């Protein structure tokens, strides 16, 4: 079940990504609708983070491309926001929650300019939206995991983008915060923004998302939630053995070069 649409916000075309000798994404080909809350599902190591990173231009693809708003990423960077997995940074960095959220305003500022009152006010509103205003001046290592996650989301909000890629924004977040964040995202999509979220819970996925992507090294499904969330596709994503892809991966690892890199 892979549904392609016209005038997509995101188009991924025949994307193939490897880490060195290790192929991780095979021929991903998908299109995503605007103004939708979109979930990416898949088991650990399925390549969910890799897909987002590749769309964000953080890792090079072996072949294929992706386009956002029908343009090259570099043309539209100011309209795109990325929330990395929380574990990807060292939270012992000397900064307050507010400092981090302020980073979301940097790309509007340009080089040499310092963030001022306006940026600070924006950062504060964003902290308020994720219910973290009281922690604005707290050193980031003194925040709980869920609070750190909310700081990251506030930073993304401060970017005032049109499309958001979030890598596991609900990891370590309690149920009531998760619900609050989902309704925040729904508000955003109602205003025409697109929010793409890596998610791990199949049950809530059915309730939260308008559109689902199921991934396990290759694309298993992409389409409206009610059509994608079927027993068969879930088994394919989570239960099915991909022995063939794993075997080929092993074979490539043993050889002297990666034939998929052209």
């Amino acid at each position, binding site marked *: 079940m892979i549904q392609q649409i016209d005038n997509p916000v995101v188009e991924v075309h025949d994307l193939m990504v490897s880490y060195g000798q290790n192929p991780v994404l095979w021929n991903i080909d998908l299109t995503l609708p605007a103004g939708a809350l979109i979930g990416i599902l898949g088991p650990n190591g399925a390549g969910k983070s890799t897909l987002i*990173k590749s769309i*964000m*231009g*953080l890792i090079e693809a072996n072949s294929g491309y992706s386009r956002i708003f029908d343009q090259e990423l*570099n043309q539209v*960077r*100011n309209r*795109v*926001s*990325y929330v*990395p997995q929380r574990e*990807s*940074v*060292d939270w012992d*960095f*000397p*900064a*307050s929650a507010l*400092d*981090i959220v302020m*980073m979301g305003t*940097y*790309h509007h*500022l340009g*080089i*040499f300019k*310092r*963030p001022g009152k306006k940026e600070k006010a924006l950062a504060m509103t964003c902290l308020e939206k994720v219910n973290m205003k009281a922690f604005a001046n707290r*050193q980031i*290592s003194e925040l709980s995991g869920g609070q750190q996650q909310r700081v990251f989301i506030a*930073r993304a909000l401060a*970017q005032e983008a049109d499309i958001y890629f979030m890598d596991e924004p609900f990891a370590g977040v309690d149920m009531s915060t998760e619900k609050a964040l989902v309704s925040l995202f729904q508000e955003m999509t109602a205003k025409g923004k697109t929010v793409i979220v890596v998610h791990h819970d199949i049950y809530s996925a059915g309730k939260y998302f308008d559109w689902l992507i199921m991934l396990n090294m290759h694309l298993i499904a992409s389409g409206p939630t009610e059509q994608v969330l079927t027993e068969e596709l879930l088994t394919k994503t989570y239960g099915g053995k991909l022995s063939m892809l794993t075997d080929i991966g092993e074979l490539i690892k043993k050889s002297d070069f990666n034939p998929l890199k052209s």
Partner: protein
Amino acid sequence: MEDFIYFFSFQDPNVLMVVVGISLLSISAAMVGTFTFLDKKALIGDAISHAVLPGVCLAFMLSGNKNPYWIVSGAFITGALSTYIISWISNYTKLKEDTVIAAVLSIFFGLGIVIMTQLQQTGNAALSGLDHFIFGNAISIVRKDLLVYGILALTIILVILFFYKEFKVMVFNRSFAQSIGLPVKRLEFLFNSLMVLAVVTGIQAIGVVLMAALLITPAAAAKFWTDRLDRMLIIAVVFSLISGIVGAYISFALPHMPTGPWVVIVLSLIAFLSFFFSVKKGVLTKWIAKRNYQRKIHSDHILKALFGAWEKGKQGLKTENIFNIFPGKNFKTQYSINKLNKKGYITENQSIIKLTESGLTEAKRIVRLHRLWELYMTEYMNIAPDHVHDSAEKLEHIITPELESKLDRNLNFPKADPHHSIIPRDPKKP
């Protein structure tokens, strides 16, 4: 003493020049070093500071004198080469980065020593003072050197100030920096160049090897005092300045004394003191806080014992009995009794200790907190009444008045605790 006044009055233009030079290089090293430290690149800094030696020696060999332009260029080239080789080898092999760094560091440094020994055997008179580049001698800085090293240091300082926010976001979260379109690769290249330059500016005054310490130690020490990047930069700069100027002064007062080792000694002292005394994270500060807390607990327990007696209608306890409650802690108990006496919570008369009015209020407060917390645990946390004592025993010492009134409100101003003991209240307060 005369030396001291002479040096720090800066009446000698040569002294002034040395101080200006060492200040600039200390500032630039501390600023670059703060980011190096936060980016966990301390080892690379160390490698660079070793790798500039062959460059210095080669420049010597080719130019035949101590011309600073040659020296700086030579040092920069081999320093930069080492970082390039390190990242190249770690990217293209499976070797761990620290292994690669250690190997590259020793190879470059070994090479430098070989060339230097060769040079010294040729006996060229112009070569005397080459060993200054190993441990540094600030006093050997002359006008021509100051111009080169000073301009370099100033450039580093300005670049860091200009790119402050870019470096900040890059060091904290590279992938995010990249995602907002910052040229991370180029920034990283710029930063690596700054790191090499920062080492190069110090080779004459501090010496090649010890520059690594001037790069990293101020930042490491500053981290103990603050958790904001801007303040950390300032504190690191101050630490670095102090050590740089003291080192220069010692080289001035005691001729032939190399500057670098003294800078490092002063820096280590600062780092050591920061480790013990810093307001937030110092070991000693923590230790004192813990000891004070334990003393308070002990006093609280004595008050509670007296309160227990009071509840049973007794007019106080024998001093001897109090000591018996805390076997093996006579010293602590005596200390606490003295303290409580001074505070006016208790009086001691003919070996009988009694609570005063204010002591009774304080004791009631502690017992109240204990019993309120026990009640909260049983009512709200569903913990069995016989399991709540230990936690209450700990929390009674730290619950603040705000929390107390919140507890009281939540529990609707209860009269008794789960064990049916009365929760003592102050009749004066509602």
